């Protein structure tokens, strides 16, 4: 290329810098940047460009169509409730694992990661069986007219399953580092157990719990494998956004799939940003 007589424009400068940097750097850098470019930057750009070919009006119309809105409701509301539920029980489990001794503790502690390691299709399969009307757990609640599998409740159970390790594993290390001295001090100074918990234990834990809930929420929002099997995937009932994308693709409606995909991706990015902010907040305590 002929050397340009103009100074590089500000928006070209970053690219130039990246190029200069890459040509001067060692090969691990080139592998890292090259792989990230091919695997992440290129696909994300392709999706955004595909969406940007659509007039904003049409994009908005598809993104807020009644069926899309109902899938957002099922996906995000259910994921939020599940994540918050796990915020409560995950913290309780972390507390129990850190503070108390009981038989088989090591195995129980290790098993918390099982939802993380178990392939999602297996999770969906077994949850659909266990929570169906004649399953081990489902048959207990069926006489009360409660159906779990193949309803929105089933989606919630699948989301509870997959987001549980995130809360426990974020809260546990913070609890481990917390000295029980402070609690004893609070108690000696006359605080009730409830006051001790509320004013002494909870504040330093709160950033970790929020981070765990956000991580769990993020995972639950994107989940596909377990939820698609445990739900009936009926529109306006228990159809989640990832399944809608899948159905659009099956109908060769690439535009429709892309629009919902962009909405989901943007929300994932916002959650990722939130998690980073929460983690920075948590570091202030340590």
């Amino acid at each position, binding site marked *: 290329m002929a050397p340009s007589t103009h100074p590089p424009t500000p928006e070209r400068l970053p690219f130039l810098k990246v190029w200069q940097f890459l040509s001067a750097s060692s090969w691990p850098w080139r592998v890292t940047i090259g792989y990230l470019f091919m695997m992440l930057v290129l696909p994300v750009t392709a999706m955004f460009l595909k969406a940007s070919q659509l007039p904003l009006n049409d994009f908005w119309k598809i993104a807020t169509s009644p069926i899309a809105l109902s899938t957002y409701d099922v996906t995000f509301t259910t994921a939020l409730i599940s994540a918050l539920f796990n915020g409560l029980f995950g913290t309780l489990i972390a507390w*129990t694992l850190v503070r108390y001794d009981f038989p088989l503790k090591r195995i129980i502690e290790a098993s918390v990661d099982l939802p993380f390691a178990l392939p999602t299709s297996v999770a969906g399969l077994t949850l659909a069986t266990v929570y169906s009307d004649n399953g081990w757990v489902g048959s207990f609640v069926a006489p009360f007219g409660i159906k779990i599998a193949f309803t929105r409740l089933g989606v919630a159970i699948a989301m509870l399953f997959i987001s549980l390790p995130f809360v426990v594993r974020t809260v546990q290390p913070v609890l481990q580092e917390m000295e029980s001295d402070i609690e004893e001090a609070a108690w000696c100074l006359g605080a009730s157990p409830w006051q001790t918990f509320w004013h002494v234990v909870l504040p330093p834990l709160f950033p970790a719990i929020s981070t765990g809930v956000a991580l769990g929420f993020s995972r639950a929002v994107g989940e596909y494998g377990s939820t698609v099997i445990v739900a009936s995937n009926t529109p306006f009932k228990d159809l989640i956004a990832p399944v809608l994308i899948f159905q659009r693709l099956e109908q060769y409606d690439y535009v429709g799939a*892309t629009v919902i995909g962009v909405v989901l991706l943007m929300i994932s990015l916002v959650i990722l940003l939130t998690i980073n902010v929460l983690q920075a907040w948590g570091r202030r305590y340590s």
Partner: protein
Amino acid sequence: MKKTTAPLKKSWVPTIFIGITLLYLSLIVYIPAFNVFAQAFRKGAGPFFENMTHPVFLDAVRLTVLLALIAVPINIVFGLCAAWAIARHKFPGRAFLLSVLDLPFSISPVVAGLMLVLLYGRNGWFGSALEAVNIKVIFAFPGMLLASMFVSMPFVAREVIPILEETGADQEEAAKTLGASEWQTFWHITLPNIRFGLLYGVILTNARVMGEFGAVSVVSGNITRRTQTLSLYVEDTYREYLTEAAYSAAVLLACLAVVTLVVKEIVERRTHQDG
């Protein structure tokens, strides 16, 4: 260390907490996990092994192993490069790069698959170019490979970065001063330091590749005997009411998960001993 927490007298509180923990974990994790094995062996071991030798099942196993054999080494190389680049350098945008590295965990697997379709599908960016050279990516093995690589990309780097940061660069610099080549430094100094973290990262990568469902499902087309992994086989047989076949494959995948957790335990114990 005292076992009781002072404000909560040695009373019924621990019992209730342990009780709730066990009940919650049973409902969400243990009963479903146990159910996998109970269903698979409901009619004894005979039908189970019969399902295991079914040609469709064997094809799914073969494809799953082949995916892992290719995707895992590629992600090991990338993970080590990225970990070294991020942990051994201070540069503007380092935190940003770390977040970018985490993206595959945040992006829904279905969206990941969709992006691959938009890139490599028939109407995608590279669609016509690929068609010209007669390479099929979507609804074929290369697409499934890309999807598996995508979803399991961050594991190795994420496990290795903290260890590299903790050990520092002193030993490596010393080795270099003494005349070791970069490769020798990596092989004799860095690798032994990070071996446990790397092992766990590899195990996680492998588990994710072998178990991935969403992303692979989008790009595979789920063609029986050709683009069907074990995870897809589970869903497919379940939808066709071949519940026993589904559970036979599920047992295999559940064992993989158990192995993953056991390796994690071992790695954690070893790192505690070292540290």
